[in-house]
């Protein structure tokens, strides 16, 4: 197949994945899958708050104990998130450019609201994640958390979480953001399969259901912690705040 086409085609796999429409789509799906894996794992970690202070602080310490490996994982996740966000923004800009004149009368046939708001749900979640990191990981917003220790002298992340979610404002923002994240995933999880070529008319409906199930499970899992704190099902060791 030799045509006179003077178009330059990408020369390597990374180039294919970052320079062509289909490649970018595949890469978005792959990085989305990594992010989804993180979101799921993070939920499992969070739920340990409900078991108790000891369990959760042990879990936190184990993570911290990974040392250099933790930084490798963090770097990997950050890269995946970064690529996912960067591609999302780039694709959106290209998509806007692809239709310079809008329809006066536009209707939607079957595209879900979630699919049409991916960029917005995605960007809001990003802003939340930044706050969330500043809040609990870097602790810039609440430096007082840094001094909390438990009876074994470990960093008391359990109390930090309870204290954090005791603020209705923070909990509300958290719930909203997690809700949007799950809404994002209600399209994203099914979309991921399609982008990776793993779809058929028979599976299309099933994947949609699967995506919604995943979104609901994640939302329930994430919401459990702040809700438990606000309902005082989980509290500080002393029983008071």
């Amino acid at each position, binding site marked *: 197949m*030799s045509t*006179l086409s003077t178009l330059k085609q990408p020369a390597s796999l990374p180039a294919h994945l970052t320079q062509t429409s289909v490649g970018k789509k595949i890469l978005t799906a792959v990085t989305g899958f990594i992010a989804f894996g993180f979101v799921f794992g993070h939920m499992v970690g969070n739920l340990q708050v409900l078991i108790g202070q000891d369990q959760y602080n042990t879990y936190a310490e184990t993570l911290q104990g990974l040392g250099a490996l933790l930084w490798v994982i963090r770097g990997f996740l950050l890269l995946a998130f970064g690529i996912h966000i960067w591609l999302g923004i780039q694709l959106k800009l290209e998509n806007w450019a692809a239709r310079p004149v809008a329809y006066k009368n536009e209707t939607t046939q079957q595209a879900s609201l979630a699919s049409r708001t991916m960029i917005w749900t995605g960007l809001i979640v990003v802003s939340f994640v930044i706050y969330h990191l500043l809040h609990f990981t870097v602790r810039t917003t609440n430096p007082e958390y840094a001094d909390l220790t438990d009876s074994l002298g470990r960093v008391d992340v359990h109390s930090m979480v309870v204290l954090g979610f005791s603020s209705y404002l923070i909990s509300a923002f958290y719930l909203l953001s997690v809700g949007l994240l799950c809404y994002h995933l209600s399209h994203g999880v099914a979309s991921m399969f399609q982008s990776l070529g793993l779809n058929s008319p028979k599976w299309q409906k099933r994947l949609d259901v699967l995506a919604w199930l995943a979104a609901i499970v994640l939302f329930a899992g994430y919401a459990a912690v702040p809700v438990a704190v606000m309902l005082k099902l989980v509290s500080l060791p002393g029983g008071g705040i």
Partner: protein
Amino acid sequence: MKLDAKTPSGPIADKWEKHKFDMKLVNPANKRKYKAIVVGSGLAGGSAAASLAELGYNVDCFCFQDSPRRAHSIAAQGGINAAKNYQNDGDSVYRLFYDTVKGGDFRSREANVHRLAEVSVNIIDQCVAQGVPFAREYGGLLSNRSFGGAQVSRTFYARGQTGQQLLLGAYSALSRQVGLGNVKMYPRTEMLDVVLVDGHAKGIVVRNLATGKVSSHAADAVVLATGGYGNVFYLSTNAMACNVTAAFRAYKKGAAFANPCYTQIHPTCIPVSGDYQSKLTLMSESLRNDGRIWVPKAEGEKRAAGDIPEAERDYYLERKYPSFGNLAPRDISSRSAKEVCDEGRGVGDTGFGVYLDFADAIGRLGEPVIRERYGNLFDMYERITGENPYKTPMRIYPASHYTMGGLWVDYNLESNIPGLFVIGEANFSDHGANRLGASALMQGLADGYFVLPYTIGDYFARVGAKNIQPDGAEFKEVEKAVEERTRKMLSINGSRSVDSFHKELGKIMWENCGMGRNKQGLEKALQEIPALRERFWKDVKVLGDNSEMNLSLENAGRVADFLEFGEMMCLDALDREESCGAHFREEYQTEEGEALRNDKKYSYVAAWEYQGNDKRPALHKENLEFEFVKLATRSYK
């Protein structure tokens, strides 16, 4: 004018082989010195342009559609014949040849038809290699169906979209050559005239339909693959823009036009629903296997079909042709429908329709079986008419469908103008007075893939590369004439739209030169058409200007040519005082109403030569000799 068919001598099965050897060749290294213009990108044009480019010639290809993929070959439904004998049912090249000559009612050229049957087998191979998804059996081999006029299963098909798939195959081959730079494609470009240099066709003048720009293009030969002229009836199963202009312009430059009166009327189309109707849609003939055709016995019947008792229905085909019944051949069924409607017994709002009733079949076999057999056709019928054919009978009526006539060509597919080749439906050569089902696709691809690429090479080798440029006096003169004609149409600024003239012409043609023709009607039409033409040139209203996309202007040029062409069609029908195939002269029929051929007097191709505006064209006759097939009367008893 001398019409030399240049048919090779020798046994029928060896003629093409011998001719291929006798033809001159162009050395591979010299091919790039030659350029061919191909007008039209359907099955014939698309396949020819691709094949010529593959050989190494330079090709310029033109189509008026916005893409070569949209040519009207795409609409063919049923299939394509080929003498593969994959079914082991006794098919052979000779049988396909014989069926085609007989189906054409012995009015085609034997040698051309035999070659068509010979190369039919190559077409299927070629299309499969291109990735055309023909229907297959579970064992993985190709599937066949049977079709009218044949007792063997030799029709290959791709669902109900065979034409589409074959065209997309040719289009993919063409696209590949465009990508390689061997074909320069000019879409949205309409040919308005052919240019002769020293008596040879060496170029064309075209109008870019998007910008209005008129320009000249030169080449060493011109190939017309511009389809048929069924739209002379205004309403037909052809696409809206199908037209006779390219062929008619060539005729005006001296190319003979052969057998224009051979037009095929298909019996099962969805009837006209009102004056606004713009086109007719074909329903597969296979429906007649299970449907019963009837009209009310009484004139002016107003009751709904279901309320008319059995005793008051006239199943006229079953009555008149007890042995064939509803499966009577195309021309007989079409004419019978016309008769009962002319008697005032037609159904539907317009009175031009007959019932095709599935109630009996549904009662006998059950709705699921009928749905299984015809579901997609029933859906299409409902989409267009809004009626549910499972509940009420379908209404059908015949419609103009295919034109066997066309520019006269010799065995090389070259017209009497040297260097002007005509292929596909645009020529007259292979179908005689009637075309069999699934043979149009076969002919288009045979011409384009396997005949023209050889014969055009012989012409090139004989005359040599001329490297003509499109700026000579011959080109300027034609360009000027084209622009003058356009200016004239734009300046009339009368009171009637182009379409209104086209509709009026269509009515004249349909009534007098349609399914049944007679002397009186044809003479009447020959009075009316020139008068209509005169009114057109005085009173047509074409808005806009020439330097932009202008659909009325495009259409006006086409209708103007139809207004002249229709007259020639009537002349031809009047001249042919016999009935043969689709040409039915009411004066010449047997007692049972069958076509009555007159082989002694009319076994010839009528080739008409232009003599000047408003002058009667001259008739030239190419006598048809049947060396291998015995002339016989077609019988459906």
